């Protein structure tokens, strides 16, 4: 739907709904305001942000724990929803604005059962159809299914590192109980591409479980520089206080990117500690690190 908001010389907003979908009252105040809300809406306190109130799960569990379960679920779906299953089986991904990036984009995708069809297709599609397989893996978290168990099944059977990395990426926003364990497993994958994907995915939900925390701590010392760096950033994003000693030791690392992001991670975990460090550290040869140190020092 398209709604016209006219902006007059006196900053008054005149809203004209062009479709029947817009049931809200037009705002006539001279200042833009959210209808029905106070001018300064309540915001989450920092405590709330760290411990969000549980909300009704938005993802539907599939309860697929092994390949046989996937095959059975697929067969059952083909019986119970044959047209839907056939449509998803034939659906083709479309080229996005980046021609290297294919993506499924159809309303039927937003159905938890779509994950079953796509998982089956992923298993059946030959490895040389790389772009299709990537798109299938990429679509799984967008089906509305709780895909942690399903991804666990597919991950263990997948020989292509690129596809394993994409499956792991799909765990980022999963609400499933096995998410953290699977990410911890992926952080030890033989492929640095998979481990890198896991470090990104791990940072996307708050309050990681101990198994994931431990795995991330180890990843900060990964043999691959990209994984090390991204794990460093994720530790900061997640507020892993136990990483602080290791992060501080990285402030002397030869890699300027690692020094920079270690300092930022310390800032995100413990601002006071970061400020204290900045007050005592000499200047760095990297200008970005120096800017970070300067900003921390100014705040003292």
């Amino acid at each position, binding site marked *: 739907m398209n709604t016209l908001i006219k902006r007059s010389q006196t900053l008054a907003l005149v809203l004209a709904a062009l479709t029947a979908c817009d049931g809200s009252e037009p705002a006539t105040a001279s200042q833009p305001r959210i209808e029905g809300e106070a001018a300064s809406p309540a915001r989450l306190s920092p405590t709330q942000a760290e411990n969000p109130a549980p909300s009704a799960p938005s993802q539907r569990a599939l309860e697929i724990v092994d390949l046989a379960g996937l095959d059975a679920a697929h067969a059952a779906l083909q019986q119970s929803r044959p047209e839907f299953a056939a449509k998803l089986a034939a659906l083709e991904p479309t080229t996005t*604005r980046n021609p290297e990036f294919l993506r499924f984009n159809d309303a039927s995708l937003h159905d938890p059962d779509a994950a079953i069809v796509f998982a089956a297709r992923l298993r059946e599609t030959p490895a040389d159809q790389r772009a299709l397989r990537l798109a299938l893996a990429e679509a799984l978290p967008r089906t509305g299914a709780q895909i942690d168990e399903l991804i666990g099944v597919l991950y263990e059977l997948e020989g292509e590192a690129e596809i394993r990395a994409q499956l792991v990426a799909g765990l980022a926003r999963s609400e499933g109980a096995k998410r953290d364990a699977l990410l911890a497993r992926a952080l030890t994958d033989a492929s640095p591409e998979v481990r890198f994907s896991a470090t990104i995915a791990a940072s996307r939900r708050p309050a990681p479980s101990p198994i994931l925390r431990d795995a991330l701590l180890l990843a900060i010392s990964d043999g691959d520089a990209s994984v090390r760096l991204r794990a460093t950033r994720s530790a900061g994003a997640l507020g892993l206080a136990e990483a602080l000693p290791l992060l501080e030791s990285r402030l002397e690392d030869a890699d300027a990117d690692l020094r920079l992001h270690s300092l930022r991670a310390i800032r995100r975990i413990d601002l006071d500690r970061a400020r204290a460090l900045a007050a005592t550290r000499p200047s760095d040869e990297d200008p970005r690190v120096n800017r970070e140190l300067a900003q921390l020092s100014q705040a003292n």
Partner: protein
Amino acid sequence: MLRTRVPQGGAGAHLLWVSRVCAASLLALGLTGCQQDPSEASSDDDTSEASGSEAEASSESGEAEAGTDTGGEAGSSEDTGESGEDSDSGTTGTSPDWSFGDHYGLPNIDDDDGNGNIDWFDAPNASDDDPRDMVIGAAKFDGFAADDRVRLRLAGATSQVRLWHGGSPVLGDEGNPAPLTEYIFTPSGGDETFTIEFAAFLDEATLTLEHIDGSDQVIDSDTLRLLASPLILNHHLQTAEHVYMTSMGNSNADMVDGYASALGAAFTAVPGNLVMYDQWMQDEPEFATATAPGGRRLDTVIDSIRNRGLDAFPEYYFGDEPSWFIGTWGTGPKSTLDSFGNLEISPPVTVGGVEYPFGRIYYGGGMDQGMVAFLESQKIQDPIEIDTSWLCVQHVDEFMTTVADPTSAKGFKVLFADTVSGYALLDAMNGSQSLPRFGADYNYPSVQSMQTDGGLRMHNDDVQIDVLNPLKAQLMAELGLVEEDFIYIPTIFEELNFGSCSGKSVALIPGTVNLIVGNLESGSPTLFVPDPFMRGSGEGVSSDAFANDFVARMPDGWDVTFLDNWDTYHVALGEVHCGTNVIRTPAANWWEVGLHLLE
């Protein structure tokens, strides 16, 4: 239908003449479409290599070979005559003033007579409106002795210019390997009219006119500059004439309806089946113009080497139109950086004391070097390379644009993506607000779920520090901007975790900076903006915090229409601007305000 390729060979002197000039002319244009053997190029022509940089080479060679003061009377009456014909610069009674103003024209590369040939390859005809006349008035010859004559000497890019006199080519290219560089005539007693045409953008030569006696002694002399228009790309302060997008059927019907309602006849929805349902209308064609005195205008489509479905669009809509030219520069290999969402132009700016009355081009580094070389060769919009490697799609339209603001010092504002204000706005929202669109495609079913994603917040924090702040500093330096020129647009980027895009950014909330400036000559000037959909089902955009905030930040005088571009564009890594293109009206005369950039 006009093509940039020339028919091979053919019988008859005309076709032979056509085929000989093809290599020189098209290669001088820097086009990649010529099928002629480059070895047929004239030896006088510096454009003997098939490369996109040859347009620059030809214009530079013109300047190098001129050698003389080309200081004719710039801006003389001959350049401002509405009739389009040059007039002489006046006489002084018994001793006529032997001085002549510079001559500006269009490259004669369209097909006004619709015969399938670029007009440069045709003799002047009634339908060809691009060559301009230079008239030497009869009064100039007052005081000529019986055996006095006029000698014209052509120098510079002589194979790129052609002068006609009495229906015949007398100087410059005329089909032979060596261009004609000298011509002598005896005045007939009346005005003497020369028709001048150019082969390519920014072609340049010098023309020396000598009054000589019967012994070939020079009595008087003047040298003037012959200069073809550069190709000038459009900025957002120029009036919009027509807007195009691809109709994808039901999936983007709302967006089509939005444009149609606002723009009426100034909008065209290109049938999707015509262009293989390629929805990225911004990325294949770039509209530009060349202009000349007398209201002359050559509309041009730069057709990207991107060559996806929309490759058919320029030829289908403009191929048969007179006064249109379609050209491609660059040879590839192509990448996402060769799409023209990665090619934008600032409004007029002054940088370090240098005025850019047509603005400056800015693009993400990595665009095909042939295309870049051509843009640089035009000089008048000195391009700026920007780092877009941090983005998955890597286009400059993903994080900035410009809109007119007559009340501001420069007459415009830069809308610049800002994650600090993005998070401030997000954090101010009620966490329980549901976000069904984001729940379906991103697993953010509520505002709270987005607020509490620490990795997302960290990524945006780092993007602001490491990317946006330095980019802003670069733009301030290279566009002569100050803090007050910016409007920060609350933006939140997603960190992709997909193949080669892992770790790179794309808009998570539909990027409102990725908009279309719809400033038509009539009606309310309107910004067409991606609907951010930061609200629940059934809630209108009037309840949307991000939408309201955007409107509040805009300069006075703009209407804002939010378009639903979610399915067809946003999920496919683009937005409204990516899916739209606009033809605009030239805003100034380059020969009046831009010559200092073309020296």
